């Protein structure tokens, strides 16, 4: 579904050349949930923005369902880390979720249905008429997720979506993502700096090196498909995977 081949990104300014991403090649199969982890400053956001078509790449290419990505593809949705800045404060929750559908020219009745269903799915059925700033951080991120889901994307990209919410909310949102992913079967690429989160959510975890970034490991998460905050996290295998990735990232840090 999503193929990234020899992706390279170099930031050039008049007196400085920074190689952010050296070369990344991986793919995300249809319906898969893949997590990307790496040490801080390893170009995770650069990678995600390149895949989303928001950032021109310096080399290599990104293909979505066979066709190369040159700008934001019509059937891709992104949930940004900065929930407070990705929702329009002058619109209500409903209007925020509905806006992309209006632009897609979805007929009004279908639109209302999609908005209601997606808000219901994230547990915000009764907050539709509130403004984003009247909601807590976790709820705002739920709105952003509802907007992405209502858009009916082929691919969902998430850029450290839960980095700025508290631990309790974070666990709830992780389970929300798993549930939505299972219900909708949408191909998902989830970028995070949290190793636990990556192992808990992913079917695969891609471990990045520090910048200039290459892939250190593409790891299959062989945990039972049914995940649960309590039981999954206390499995011995969970601890092993986590420890393994932790070591990799430690190594990546030291190599710098």
């Amino acid at each position, binding site marked *: 579904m999503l193929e990234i081949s020899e992706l390279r990104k170099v930031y050039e300014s008049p007196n400085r050349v920074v190689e952010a991403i050296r070369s990344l090649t991986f793919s995300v199969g249809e319906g898969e949930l893949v997590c990307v982890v790496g040490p801080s400053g390893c170009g995770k956001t650069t990678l995600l923005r390149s895949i989303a078509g928001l950032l021109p790449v310096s080399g290599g290419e990104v293909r979505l369902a066979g066709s190369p990505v040159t700008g*934001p593809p019509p059937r891709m949705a992104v949930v940004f880390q900065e929930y407070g800045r990705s929702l329009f404060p*002058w*619109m209500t929750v409903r209007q925020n979720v509905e*806006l992309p559908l209006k632009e897609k020219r979805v007929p009004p009745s279908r639109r209302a249905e999609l908005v209601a269903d997606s808000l219901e799915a994230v547990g915000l059925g009764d907050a539709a008429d509130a*403004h984003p700033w009247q909601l807590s951080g976790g709820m705002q991120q739920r709105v952003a997720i509802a907007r992405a889901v209502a858009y009916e994307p082929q691919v969902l990209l998430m850029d450290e979506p839960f980095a700025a919410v508290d631990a309790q909310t974070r666990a709830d949102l992780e389970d929300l993502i798993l549930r939505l992913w299972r219900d909708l079967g949408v191909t998902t690429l989830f970028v995070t700096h949290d190793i636990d989160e990556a192992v808990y959510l992913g079917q695969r975890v891609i471990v990045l090196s520090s910048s200039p970034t290459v892939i250190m490991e593409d790891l299959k998460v062989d945990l039972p498909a049914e995940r649960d905050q309590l039981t999954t996290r206390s499995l011995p295998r969970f601890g092993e995977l986590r420890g393994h990735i932790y070591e990799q990232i430690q190594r990546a840090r030291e190599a710098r």
Partner: protein
Amino acid sequence: MRALRRAVTWFGLPVLLVLVWWLVSGGSFYLPDPLKVVRAFWDTWVSARAFEDVLPSLGRLLLGYVAATLLGVGLGVLVGLSPRLRATLEPVLEFFRAIPPPVLVPLLMLLAGIDTPMKVLVIVSGCVWPILLNTVEGVRALDEVLADTCRMYGVRGGSRLRRFVLRGASPQIMAGLRQALSIGIILMVISEMFASSSGLGFTIVLFQRQFQIAEMWSGILLLGLIGLALSFLFRLLERRVLSWYYGSGAARA
């Protein structure tokens, strides 16, 4: 008790000022007491003059203000969205902004005559700058994450302009409009003081020349009241347009 205290806070100073006025007035012919001025106010402005002088003045103000808004916001959005256009225009804009609009009156009289078009042009020439420059700032300061969100979800063209650019820049645009309003009132009066035969500014100068001192003072009083009323109306509008801005706490941040 509380209502009383509030009344004292609101009206205390105005009442005090009127009392001071009363005390110092009377001695001079040029400084009539408040009662005379109020009587002159009633006789002068609550009459046909309201239609012959006040309304045309306000009409020109409204026309100039609206034209300046369209011009300032329109050009401001273009300049704000294009770094190259901004680099080209900025020095020129700064120059034009630095010219005090009243000095344009003699020039505009030559170009546009002495009637309504000239007066409206004077108002536009002064009001457009704060609106334009604030709009440019507002558009430049638009949130990048929201811009990315627009790109991702296919919000572009007119919809992007209406739902993102103008709304996002509206706090700064409103700040520019507020500045432009007071400039507009000043220019409305000034434009009528030159070669004019009607309007508030003309009438006040006329009273002064004919030594109708109480009437002249009443005109100044009227201008103050008009300014007060307009800024009150503006505040109502602002509360409506920017309710999200005040609500979200962005105004305090």
